[in-house]
């Protein structure tokens, strides 16, 4: 993930804004500024769920509306004041988010987006059709301004100031969270959910937390909006609000707090500059959104960064990984593992063990079940039958993040490192679940990279690396987990001879520390000298389990590969 340090332009912009507010703005101008602040706060929350977690939630406007109605109803009907209504406006949307998030967040992206749209429509219908509670289509007038502990915050400069203080506080909080372990975990899960799980991150819980936090911000924004308008009506729940937030987030720059603020300032003032368009200003929003997503997907902040690239963070000093007691003897025991896909038995009763400090090779022709086997052991697929025991602990059928936390790490056949991410951050992601801070994770990651002779890659982008170096980063990421069992899926594919020799040496060093290593490979010249033992698969069954030297001469193996006719 890109390092985030305040850009000098943003600091200048903040000062300009302050000057404008204090010296130039008319009462109407202050009102617009206040509304911009409200939308900025809402958009910051949206960036958490949409930008960081990567989920297009169309219920954000609904959370805003629920926060607005909570303050509106309690304030105008019951006469509650700000210290009482504001917490309710925060709590209700969060509760709603937790309630709907649990079933809905596990759905694939378009289902999720449309499910959240459905939720938004239900909330709108409720607001319009329960006039006794909500005032129906006309809403409720007479919502009081902010009044706390005997002090009033009148409209105009004081209210604008309060809203923008909330934006500042909320913005700093969100920015800090994004840079911390939680935020890094979220971006990993957005970019590569499979890898995130195999690095031990509880994907479902993270998404729910992001969703709930976004609802908190939306609720706060809703409460402040209603204090500004002094009226609450179904307008706060209608689609244009959601549209505005989405446009702000995309045009401002997805995932960036600064993007939310810049986007809000721009897009809320836009209709003022294009007054002659009246209600049709939304057409401009639509056009801006379309243009942004097609032409400038990284938004305004992305453009700014291109113009003024930020200085990269200095690399931390390497801190060795905490020592681990080396395991001994049988680490992994697999018995009778089976998995069928639509009638085809990909893995058909496979049993084997992996010993500490030993390298086991796994070979087999195309379609023999090697990758399925690794997927079963690492939890990406659930077995139909069989056991997988890690130091006696049964793991078969568990979720992949639980299996990862138990001590199994793996690499993938098609090296799937996130293109835009830096190498150090990618390796550090493996430590997020173990270390207590991002700094510690990065320091440990430096140590792992140094051990593999890749320290100088730390500040590069993964997408720029050639295959051999990418594989090394992937290996570093898996090693950073300090696993008991390491599953390598074709680690030598695409490497030059020299790189293969280095890789073999590195794998031997890893095994020497006590890790049980399983290597899937086609290149026999690489694998046979390296492995202590070789397993041969064909059509989902083990047909060889023994010495590497015997592999080229074993009739079953030769026949499976070369194919003797019936």
């Amino acid at each position, binding site marked *: 993930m890109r390092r985030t340090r305040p850009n000098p332009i943003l600091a200048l912009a903040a000062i300009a804004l302050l000057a404008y507010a204090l010296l130039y703005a008319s009462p109407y101008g202050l009102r617009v500024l206040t509304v911009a602040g409200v939308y900025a706060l809402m958009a910051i929350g949206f960036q958490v769920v949409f930008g960081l977690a990567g989920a297009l939630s169309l219920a954000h406007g609904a959370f805003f509306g629920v926060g607005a109605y909570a303050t509106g109803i309690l304030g105008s009907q019951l006469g509650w004041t700000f210290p009482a209504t504001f917490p309710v406006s925060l709590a209700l949307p969060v509760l709603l988010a937790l309630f709907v998030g649990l079933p809905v967040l596990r759905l694939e992206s378009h289902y999720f987006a449309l499910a959240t749209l459905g939720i938004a429509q239900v909330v709108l219908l409720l607001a319009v059709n329960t006039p006794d509670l909500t005032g129906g289509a006309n809403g409720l007038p007479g919502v009081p301004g902010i009044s706390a502990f005997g002090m009033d915050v009148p409209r105009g400069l004081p209210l604008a100031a309060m809203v923008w203080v909330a934006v500042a506080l909320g913005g700093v909080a969100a920015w800090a969270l994004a840079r911390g372990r939680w935020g890094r975990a979220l971006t990993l899960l957005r970019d590569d959910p499979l890898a995130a799980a195999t690095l031990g991150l509880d994907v479902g819980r993270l998404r729910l937390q992001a969703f709930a936090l976004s609802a908190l911000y939306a609720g706060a924004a809703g409460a402040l909006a209603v204090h500004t308008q002094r009226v609450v009506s179904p307008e706060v729940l209608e689609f244009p609000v959601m549209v505005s937030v989405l446009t702000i987030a995309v045009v401002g720059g997805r995932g960036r707090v600064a993007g939310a603020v810049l986007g809000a300032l721009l897009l809320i003032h836009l209709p003022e500059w294009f007054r002659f368009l009246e209600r049709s200003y939304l057409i401009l929003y639509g056009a801006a959104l379309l243009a942004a997503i097609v032409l400038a997907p990284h938004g305004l902040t992305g453009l700014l960064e291109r113009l003024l690239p930020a200085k990269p963070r200095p690399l931390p000093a390497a801190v060795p990984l905490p020592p681990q007691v080396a395991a001994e003897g049988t680490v992994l025991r697999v018995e009778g593992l089976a998995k069928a896909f639509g009638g*085809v038995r990909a893995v058909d009763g496979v049993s084997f063990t992996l010993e500490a400090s030993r390298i086991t090779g796994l070979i087999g*022709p*195309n*379609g023999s079940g090697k990758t399925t086997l690794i997927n079963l052991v690492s939890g990406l697929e659930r077995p139909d039958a069989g056991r997988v025991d890690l130091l006696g602990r049964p793991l078969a059928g568990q979720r992949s993040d639980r299996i990862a936390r138990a001590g199994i790490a793996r690499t993938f056949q*098609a*090296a799937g490192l996130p293109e835009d991410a830096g190498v150090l951050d990618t390796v550090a992601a493996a430590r997020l679940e173990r270390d207590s801070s991002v700094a510690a994770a990065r320091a440990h990651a430096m140590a792992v990279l140094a051990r593999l002779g890749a320290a100088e890659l730390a500040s590069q982008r993964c997408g720029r*690396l*050639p*295959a051999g170096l*990418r594989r090394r980063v992937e290996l570093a990421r898996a090693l950073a987990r300090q696993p008991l069992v390491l599953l390598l899926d*074709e680690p030598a*594919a*695409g*490497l030059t*001879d020299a790189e293969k020799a280095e890789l073999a040496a590195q794998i031997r060093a890893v095994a020497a520390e006590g890790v049980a290593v399983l290597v899937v490979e*086609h*290149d*026999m*010249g*690489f*694998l*046979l000298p390296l492995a202590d033992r070789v397993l041969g698969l064909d059509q989902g069954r083990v047909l060889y389990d023994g010495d590497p030297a015997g*592999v*080229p001469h074993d009739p079953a*193996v*030769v026949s499976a*590969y*070369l*194919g*003797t*006719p*019936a």
Partner: protein
Amino acid sequence: MTDLLRIEGLSAGYGGATAVDRVTLALGAGEAVALLGANGAGKSTLIKAVLGLVPSAGRVVFDGADLTALAPERRVRLGLGYVPEGRRVFPGMSVRDNLEVASFASAAKRRAALEHVFALFPQLREKADERAWRLSGGQQQMLAIGRALMGEPRLLLLDEPSLGLSPKLAGEVFAAVRAITQTGTAVLVAEQSTARALAVGRRAVLLRLGAVVHDGPAAELDEETLRAAFLGVPLADDGSGR
């Protein structure tokens, strides 16, 4: 014999890795060639590169036409037929529709081509109106081959046609492929199962880790060379194993 297909210095790969490494090879009209090698040797990638389904560097010339800038659908219309690994029949379409969709001729010629395919694969005629997903593996393989023939190709590219089939079915499939070679269509068959492929192709091209290590008559290919290519036992004259 002028070359029907000429591959010059072709390199192709996935995600930064080179699966095919500057391969040069040529095929004449009507020739039958077995493309051999272990998994990961580059056979599939080579075929996909010829069809334009993966990005590549180097040149591919088919019947005098340089294919480099052409999209796959254009290349296929020039006379290439593709039978992919895993068959990939269109599952929701009937056998007849699967076949007809692959023809780019008029309705009358299409019907004639259909008859020709049914004559070659009588089982398909029986199942003509069944959805393709209901066919067995062997029948789907025949359908995939028949589909590729509908475009009246001059060169048929087959990628692991015996994968996932029982020896008996694999035998039937290869018998059909042999029959096709006898009609004058050039055939390039990629196969892990060496014995089967050699029954079809007079000429064998052996790939190892993306490079050609043998290109000549199948009869000259001995077991030691094969073992070295598949199982990494170093070749006698080249101690490094590559």
